[in-house]
């Protein structure tokens, strides 16, 4: 699964994107975020409050209980601040 991070998530996590094999039980963005938080202090800090985050799957905004499929592109970012 391809993961993208934008804005301060990118800064805190220390990278803009990565490709990962997820455990089989990670089937929603909510579960993905909980799992990512265990990967280190940068992730834990960036993802600590889901209310400050938004998620897109395959370039479309989705809810936290959206059903993920293998090969999805998942992007995590703060609320947009516009142009």
């Amino acid at each position, binding site marked *: 699964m391809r993961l993208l991070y934008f804005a301060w998530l990118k800064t805190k996590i220390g990278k803009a994107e990565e490709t990962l094999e997820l455990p089989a039980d990670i089937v929603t963005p909510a579960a993905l975020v909980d799992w990512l938080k265990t990967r280190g202090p940068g992730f834990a800090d960036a993802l600590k409050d889901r209310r400050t985050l938004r998620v897109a799957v395959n370039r479309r905004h989705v809810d936290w209980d959206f059903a993920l499929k293998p090969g999805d592109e998942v992007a995590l970012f703060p609320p*947009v*601040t*516009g*142009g």
Partner: protein
Amino acid sequence: MIRVQREDFDVGAEIERLARDKTTIGGVVTFVGTVRSAGGADAITAMTLDHYPGMTEDELAAIEAEANKRWKLEASLIVHRYGRLLPGERIVLVVTAAAHRAAAFAANEFLVDWLKTKAPFWKQEETPQGARWVEAQDSDDQAAKRWAKG
């Protein structure tokens, strides 16, 4: 038409290209957003726009299609820049052309309000105190809500 690009744009040339020889157009409304710096202690020395390539284009195209559904436009254009910009530099161009001026004004303001709240851009401002990511603003959300249906 929509474009997302790092480079600056030429406002006069963009309008000319969009409206040239279309004699059904009576009014062309153009919005140019620029990097503002108030000066003083919280002066912005630069602004960087992060975005989600691909998704940005999809959303701008959807916004433009929605505006063309709500108002009878003869032509429309959105050009949005990303990357690091200095005070006074252009950020965004919205052009709406219609037979009647009311449609051109309404569609343009609709698009600009929407871009300010919904387009997947994130602003980082540089000030003498350092760099900070801008938080989403409530007043911008209010402006976009004006256009919500039902």
